[in-house]
């Protein structure tokens, strides 16, 4: 089995890291702004970036199933390996569920998503205020969960690097 990530896997990882941090920051910032042209603009950008992230995660998943990542160090206890796999599974699941919940919320609230203002994404739901409000709570809840899992992901990478002193963190860096 290989002991390194492919360049593509690393590129996708860091591209999505930047995109998702931007999306999270924008989402938490914009949602309680008073209505203004600025707010409408930020919402559009958030949705365009969200659709982009959703497509990227599909590409990433396709790459992941065709290119196995390097194994975890044999020194890792079985339970920690299980936790690592569960954490990565949760990250992928949330990276799919979050844009989906945003897409459905937009449809239910009656604001269609038009990618970069050009490509209309079909509405999967009819306009429905109650459902829209519910999906807003779901979207927010999933994101709070995502932040928690991300904190675990980053915390674990730092623990591997500074405490376990293995190559878990460095093998995701460009020149490894």
């Amino acid at each position, binding site marked *: 089995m290989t002991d390194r990530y492919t360049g593509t896997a690393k590129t996708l990882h860091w591209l999505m890291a930047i995109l998702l941090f931007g999306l999270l920051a924008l989402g938490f910032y914009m949602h309680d702004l008073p*209505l*203004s*042209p*600025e707010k*409408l*603009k930020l919402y*559009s950008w958030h949705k365009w970036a969200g659709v982009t992230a959703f497509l990227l995660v599909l590409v990433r998943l396709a790459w992941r199933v065709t290119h196995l990542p390097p194994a975890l160090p044999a020194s890792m206890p079985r339970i920690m390996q299980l936790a690592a796999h569960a954490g990565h599974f949760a990250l992928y699941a949330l990276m799919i569920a979050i844009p989906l919940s945003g897409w459905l919320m937009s449809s239910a*609230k*009656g*604001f*269609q*998503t*038009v990618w*970069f*203002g*050009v490509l*209309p994404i079909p509405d999967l739901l009819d*306009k429905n205020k109650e459902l829209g409000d519910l999906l807003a709570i779901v979207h927010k809840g999933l994101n709070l969960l995502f932040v928690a899992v991300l904190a675990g992901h980053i915390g674990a990478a730092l623990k591997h690097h500074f405490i376990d002193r293995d190559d878990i963190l460095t093998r995701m860096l460009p020149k490894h």
Partner: protein
Amino acid sequence: MKRFILTLALAAGLPLAANTAQAAAFNQVQTDKSAITFTYQQMGVKMDGKFRKFAAKLSFDPAKPTEASTTIDVDLTSVDTGAPEGDQEVAGKPWFNTKAFPTAQFVSTGVKAVGGNRYDVTGKLTIKGKTQDIVVPATFTPQGNSGVFDGSFTIRRGDFAIGEGAWAKFDIVANDIQIKFRITAASGK
């Protein structure tokens, strides 16, 4: 005496004549079967909304379309943009300023038959204290005892100062607003 008889005959005949004229004209607007909606683009996204309350007066005789007339008053406070936040925003000063200008009004000045069941209605549209001459294409479809007027036209919100200040640019909310209407009227008894 002759004159007296003539007056009598006229007095007796007039109500009859008036009745016949009314019977042919569609002039009883049925608000519950009528609607005024609008669509516009917001950063490339097609949005729609409607006005829940409006009053329409109308008189239309298919045999004499040029004599038709209509006055439509739209209660701007009844706007439904699809989101409460939006309804509140457009009622405010930069948009409709409903405190100072609660109503938008269309008054027809002429009707021209343009073939088939199509008509061009010219008139004056007043929103937010600004009046523009517009031409509204409409179709008329008889439905039993009533008739349905359908049509749509496009206004530029900039012409009426709808969306001032931060909203004045058209990069977020487009200038063109398409207004669609369906007015159902029964023929008078």
